[in-house]
């Protein structure tokens, strides 16, 4: 009896350890996500000043009904100077210069874009949403300590005073930052976006999937169904398993040495990135596919063989469809790992300042992890926020990919 009590106690203790471990791991995930969301959500918003602007025809040197082309070529600097001088006529020239610094330094482009999409405001006065400078943006979001000494701040006391006055007049607003999703990288946190790196990641993963998935499936089918079991097959199997454990930077070196230097493929492109990542995902998919193939009951193979099916027909009509859910899961786990991979991409130059959004896999690109790495290195406060926002996007991307894999597994799983 005492023995039984002891055993029951041990079971209870073990349960407690289990619950504690589960709780601990969930806690870590929760802290991570909470922390990133806290610092990253702000990056999806930007601060704007509602500013009254008079689009004077003469200052822009434009005729009535000016075409888009003409507006694009017009210089807005005179117009901006004139409007600022008008609005802040009580301030000195030097002060106006400082007020201007509250705004993003490329408001001329913003005004230009506004006029292009609303040409009816030519020669009229209207309120325009002008992006605030990154420092004001950070102050408005509360990421900035005002008690810091003036000389250690990017925003001086006079500028703060003006900002407070704007706030009082309800001219400052926090709006959804659509540029963040539509533009590429930039030196200015105000206009930096993830579109370039998202496209880079998409192309890279696409290439990676298109290469690794079919190759892995054919390799697995051959090894599992056709190859004679023997020393050579064993050796290949061991090496594939080893390959899955190779540090990812080695694959980057391989890409640098062979793809770039030997084959002369273009540097920093999604094509090379995809090939390198497919080296990395291949073993993962092969291992998953082989174990799924092995799990298909031999009775199914025998049934098809006994009907006079050829080996090929057995594999492609019966075995492979049954192994597909497991293979897809393996493939998506491999791809999810590849999406988050930075190290191999560093070696092939996919970590660079690239402003243009790539439109095909042969254009220079960075992936999302590399973009996060690049931004995290930047000293500007605005970029810290952007980094966290990009991490949130990457996490959402991964979660979506995982859900897709669960969906496909459920869809193709056959009930026995």
């Amino acid at each position, binding site marked *: 009896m005492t023995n039984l009590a002891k055993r029951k106690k041990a079971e209870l203790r073990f349960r407690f350890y289990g619950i504690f471990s589960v709780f601990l791991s969930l806690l870590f995930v929760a802290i991570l996500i909470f922390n990133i969301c806290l610092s990253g959500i702000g990056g999806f918003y930007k601060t704007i000043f509602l500013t009254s602007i008079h689009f004077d025809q003469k200052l822009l040197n434009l005729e009535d009904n000016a075409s888009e082309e003409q507006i694009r070529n017009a210089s807005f600097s005179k117009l901006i100077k004139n409007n600022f001088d008008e609005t802040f006529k009580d301030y000195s020239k030097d002060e106006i210069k400082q007020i201007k610094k509250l705004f993003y330094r490329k408001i001329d482009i913003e005004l230009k874009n506004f006029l292009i999409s609303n040409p009816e405001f030519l020669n009229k006065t209207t309120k325009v949403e002008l992006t605030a400078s990154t420092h004001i943006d950070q102050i408005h979001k509360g990421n900035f300590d005002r008690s810091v000494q003036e000389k250690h701040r990017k925003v001086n006391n006079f500028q703060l005073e003006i900002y407070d006055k704007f706030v009082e007049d309800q001219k400052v607003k926090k709006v959804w930052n659509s540029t963040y999703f539509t533009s590429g990288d930039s030196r200015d946190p105000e206009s930096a976006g993830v579109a370039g790196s998202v496209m880079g990641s998409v192309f890279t993963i696409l290439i990676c999937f298109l290469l690794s998935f079919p190759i892995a499936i054919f390799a697995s089918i051959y090894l599992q169904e056709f190859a*004679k*079991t023997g020393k050579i097959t064993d050796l290949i199997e061991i090496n594939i398993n080893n390959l899955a454990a190779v540090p990812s930077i080695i694959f980057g070196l391989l890409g640098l040495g062979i793809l770039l230097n030997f084959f002369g493929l273009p540097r920093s492109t999604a094509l090379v990135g995809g090939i390198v990542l497919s080296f990395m995902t291949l073993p993962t998919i092969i291992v998953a596919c082989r174990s799924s193939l092995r799990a298909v*009951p031999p*009775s*199914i*193979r*025998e*049934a*098809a*063989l*006994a*009907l*006079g*099916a*050829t080996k090929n*027909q057995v594999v492609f*009509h*019966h075995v492979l469809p*049954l192994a597909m859910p497991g293979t897809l899961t393996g493939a998506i786990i491999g791809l999810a790992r590849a999406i988050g991979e930075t190290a191999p991409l560093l070696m092939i130059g996919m970590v660079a300042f690239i402003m243009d959004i790539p439109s095909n896999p042969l254009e220079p690109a960075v992936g999302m992890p590399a973009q996060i790495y690049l931004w995290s290195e930047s000293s500007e406060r605005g970029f810290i926020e952007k980094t966290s926002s990009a991490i949130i996007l990457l996490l959402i991307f991964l979660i979506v990919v995982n859900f897709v894999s669960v969906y496909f597994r459920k869809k193709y799983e*056959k*009930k*026995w």
Partner: protein
Amino acid sequence: MVNAINTKNLNVYYRDQQAIHNISLDFLKNKVTALIGPSGCGKSTFLRCLNRMNDVIDICRVEGNISLNGIDIYSKEIEVEYLREKIGMIFQKPNPFPKSIYDNVAYGPRIHGFTDKKEEMDLIVETSLKKAGLFEEVKDRLEDMGTSLSGGQQQRLCIARAIAIKPEVILMDEPCSALDPIATSIIEELITDLKKSYTIIIVTHSMQQAARVSDKTAFFHLGNLIEEGDTSKIFTKPDHQKTNDYITGRFG
């Protein structure tokens, strides 16, 4: 009486282990022959030689001569796929494909290119299911998964699948061992029906089953063919002591 299959001096080895010792056995056309014997006596191995299912096993080696209608099935002229079209097989455990009932039956005719037309295929499926005595039970749910049927129905589906490609011989490897008595009796009746059109060779552990369904019986022991002959004779006046011991339940 015509022989459907003749085997002569058949020896089968798994690596160095000899599983079948010099067996010569002939199977009469349109008769049911039962292979009986204790576990591990080589009857399943022998059966699997007849449609070359042992080909898939790397370590298995077959020596001797097997002929179907006088043609050597291990000769180069015979493609194994063609052979299996002529000699169907039913396995111990029902193994329908995880596809619809219709597709299960239509699979064989489809890969052998019997027909491209939907109506003709429908007819093949229907007649096959009817011959297997399953059509009435499943006619309204041909699109259901074959695996959703009960064990006995699954086995009859496998029989329908096998006869859909119009074989001459049907091999049955303990077809009822996974079934309950009622499903078993249905299958046994079916076997009696089927022998009108097919030669049936059945491996069984149940002596009663062998006595009920077969015309001929062969008794195997440790890879040797001990005795063969009419079922009635084997079960009443066996020549060999071993056969007598086995059928009276003294060993095995």
